[in-house]
């Protein structure tokens, strides 16, 4: 479903007035494959290249080297075709229309993604129920609490029934209740509908409760790729997941 083959992304950083800028590699030689139906956690310290990877997957950034395929499509060339098959949620930034009621944002998305009216209705009813949107669906997005907004964003990303869902820190800043309701929803989505999910997060609770497979990126390279159990096995027994990840983060430096 997601396929990266030696994908790389570098940025030119202009230093003062010097003409030739320094080349900074945000991601280099990154290769991994995510099979349909997998739920993968994508970890890494700040600035490791997580967001860059995500942006390459949804066609916001064009890779400078290597190959990226999502649902068999090259994201940077087939951006609009891919958009219909992928759902994206940015935890730090809403993809909804700030001044419009949630319901209007959904209606717009129905038209932009050309979702059939009846299919849309069933799907929205379903999402309204599972994400408990009923209480604030007519409220403008800017007036929603962070937890409500995130649930709205999730619904918006799923209205067109994408095959892949990419989540960039979806639980950031949420309270315990909101977090657990979103986790429950994501698990159901993955097991019942078979949606492939790629999740970046700093919250290791997300990883423990949701992800069968974990990938860890640091300095733009893959530092670990395996199951959660394998990840735990890299450290002495009785270590918590925090210990394990801390070791990996600091060890790879």
């Amino acid at each position, binding site marked *: 479903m997601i396929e990266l083959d030696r994908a790389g992304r570098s940025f030119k950083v202009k230093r003062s007035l010097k003409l030739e800028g320094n080349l900074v590699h945000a991601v280099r030689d990154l290769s991994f494959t995510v099979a349909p139906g997998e739920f993968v956690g994508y970890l890494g310290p700040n600035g490791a290249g997580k967001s860059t990877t995500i942006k390459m997957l949804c066609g916001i950034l*064009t890779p400078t080297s290597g190959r990226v395929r999502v649902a068999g499509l090259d994201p940077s060339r087939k951006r609009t075709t891919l958009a219909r098959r992928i759902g994206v949620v940015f935890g730090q930034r809403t993809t909804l229309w700030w001044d419009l009621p949630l319901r209007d944002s959904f209606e717009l998305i129905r038209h932009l993604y050309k979702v059939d009216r009846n299919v849309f209705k069933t799907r929205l009813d379903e999402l309204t129920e599972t994400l408990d949107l009923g209480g604030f669906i007519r409220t403008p997005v800017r007036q929603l609490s962070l937890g409500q907004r995130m649930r709205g964003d999730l619904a918006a990303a799923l209205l067109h029934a994408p095959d892949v869902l990419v989540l960039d820190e979806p639980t950031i800043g949420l309270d315990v209740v909101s977090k657990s309701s979103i986790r429950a929803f994501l698990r159901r989505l993955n097991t019942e509908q078979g949606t492939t999910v790629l999740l970046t997060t700093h919250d290791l609770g997300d990883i423990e409760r949701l992800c069968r497979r974990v990938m860890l990126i640091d300095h733009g390279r893959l530092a670990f790729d395996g199951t959660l159990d394998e990840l735990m096995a890299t450290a002495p027994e009785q270590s918590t997941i925090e210990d394990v990840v801390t070791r990996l983060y600091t060890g790879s430096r």
Partner: protein
Amino acid sequence: MVSAYFRLAWTWTRAAMAYPASFALMSVLGLIVAGTDVAVILIIFANTTSLAGFSRAETLFLYGTANVAFCLCDMFVSNIDRISQHVKAGTFDTMLIRPVSTWIQMAADRFLPTRIGRVLQAALVLGYSISALDLDSGRLWMIPVMITTGAVIFAALWTLAGAVQFVLTDASEVTNAFTYGSGQLTQYPFAIYGRELVRGVTYGLPLAFVNWQPALYVLDRDDPFGTPGFMRFLGPVAALVLALLAGFAWRLGIRHYRSTGS
């Protein structure tokens, strides 16, 4: 594409209509704000009967034709102007995850239906000037052609301005000089401008085809700069060339964005 545009625009319209009083007020105020430009022309002609050889009605005709086109674009396309804000805030990313052209999304971004007041104002002035002038009815066909041409040229200018903003995110006001500056320039008979400037906006940036060249045909007047007569009919060609260029620039801008990130 077109349906996506109107869907977006309609959503914003509904949002604006939620406050009817404010909606009405803004429409009227748009009309008044745009009216200051007419006020300036009227005050000038309160002091003189002719400006560089053109009468009040002729000047208002030029103002009207250019401004109907300009205000239509101001309403339907100028939202592209906000691109540097979206790039700076990182919200442009969210447009790239939608299965719709970024140009359509930007042009419809925060669509303001109240700008219809400005279009109406320009149309009123145009209507008045046509009734005040004794025009040859065989030449009136040119008026819709020139308005369409003008609208395409202004839309292309805004697109170019948007494309440039991908690079000049900190200096987006520069593009105002070209978009709003062009709107200002075409309000008056080109006879008032210097020869070099007129040459530049005829053969370089084709603003002369918004209204000046075709209007000379409608008004049946000689070109004070001696431009050949066939130029009066070249508007659609010039508009098409500029539109293609703008489309190309827009693609370049998006590519630049996707290769630099936010």
